[in-house]
């Protein structure tokens, strides 16, 4: 489905570069940290946005991720795997922590969504999210993503929206490969059914 060869080379180059950057960071080179942040901001933000479904929240979460990375960079071991995988793992752990922390708010939120009060939420007073989906289908996919359980959601995001290999996802989520595969499959099936329920017709 993807041009594996080209992607592999790029990943290898990046891996080497990232490890060197981390080393320079630990020696106190600010420019190395700057490069590391610029390289990975998009990816971290993407994960946070897809998981939370809210632009402003994703921004806050991304900042938190990099703050955590900045403080714990010394614990990264290049021998144990790519920096990108380690970063995805830090991001994922923070997303899950945040999800548990705010679950109660979320329940209240979803109750409000059902009530007529929902009109108020879309009044012009509310600041709009900066990120707008490119088309209706993407918006529906994002909505479906938000409706499946976080276990399935994170697996689908890593595989289908971040383009990771199963082996890498296994390291990020710290579960056996079989579990990764079945979560991705289950997540996709639930999302496909949600899309059908939203009136999206299969091609």
């Amino acid at each position, binding site marked *: 489905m993807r041009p594996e060869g080209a992607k592999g080379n790029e990943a290898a180059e990046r891996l080497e570069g990232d490890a060197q950057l981390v080393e320079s960071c630990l020696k106190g080179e600010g420019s190395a940290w*700057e490069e590391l942040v*610029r390289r990975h901001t998009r990816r971290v933000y993407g994960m946070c946005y897809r998981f939370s479904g809210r632009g402003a929240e994703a921004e806050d979460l991304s*900042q938190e991720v990099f703050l955590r990375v900045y403080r714990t960079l010394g614990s990264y071991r290049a021998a144990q795997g790519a920096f990108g995988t380690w970063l995805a793992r830090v991001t994922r752990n923070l997303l899950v922590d945040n999800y548990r922390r705010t679950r109660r708010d979320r329940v209240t939120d979803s109750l409000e969504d059902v009530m007529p009060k929902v009109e108020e939420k879309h009044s012009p007073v509310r600041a709009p999210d900066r990120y707008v989906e490119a088309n209706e289908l993407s918006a529906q996919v994002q909505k479906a993503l938000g409706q499946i359980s976080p276990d399935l959601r994170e697996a689908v995001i890593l595989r289908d*929206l971040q383009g990771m290999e199963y082996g890498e996802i296994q390291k990020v989520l710290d579960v056996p490969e079989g579990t990764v595969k079945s979560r991705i*499959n289950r997540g996709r099936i639930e999302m496909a059914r949600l899309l059908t329920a939203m009136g999206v017709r299969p091609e």
Partner: protein
Amino acid sequence: MKANCGQIEERLSDYIEKSLEAAEAQEMEAHLQDCAKCAALEAQMRRLLGAMAEMEGGMEAPPQLAAKILEQTLGPRKSTRGGEAWTWLKSLWKPQVLVGMAGALATLALVAQFTLPARMRGNAATPAGILRSANRQAHLVYARGVKYVNDLRVVYEIQSRLRNEPEPSPETPQRTITPGPNDRTEEHHPGHSANFTGMYEAVMLAPLAGRSMR
């Protein structure tokens, strides 16, 4: 056939990603040809995967995010070293300065709104009309000049008042100007917003007060 729909579902991703053994794949195909329900699910999963593959590329982080992260992590360290350009820029980012700038912009927009339509009024084509309008224009230009100077004075006053907000200066008049509406006037068209009346009065009445003293 419908008995193993569950098993078919379990292997649907493997089938679509072509990672099944040939025999298993054949079994899947046979089932999908007979079972409309599973076939519809397969088609919808393909559509979903296509949509997500497109979404992966389109995602961009907000432009200021990397800068914010760097400020949060490296920022304090830089300022203790005394990066002058950086601290100067940071000083511009204070709320007082921003509010002051917003106020100045709003006032300039208001001044523009009141001066532009006057310039656009047509002249009568008769000699008397031209003379009258020239006379009027001259007066208008003079009046506008006076008003402009007064307006600038008001802008300056408003700005200095906003800057000193925590410690009100002794010459602060009874009318208080809150920074809230000023913030919003940048976004709305001036004169059409109800929030604007405070500003409007401040700008329009202050010059009058100045004139009556003369």
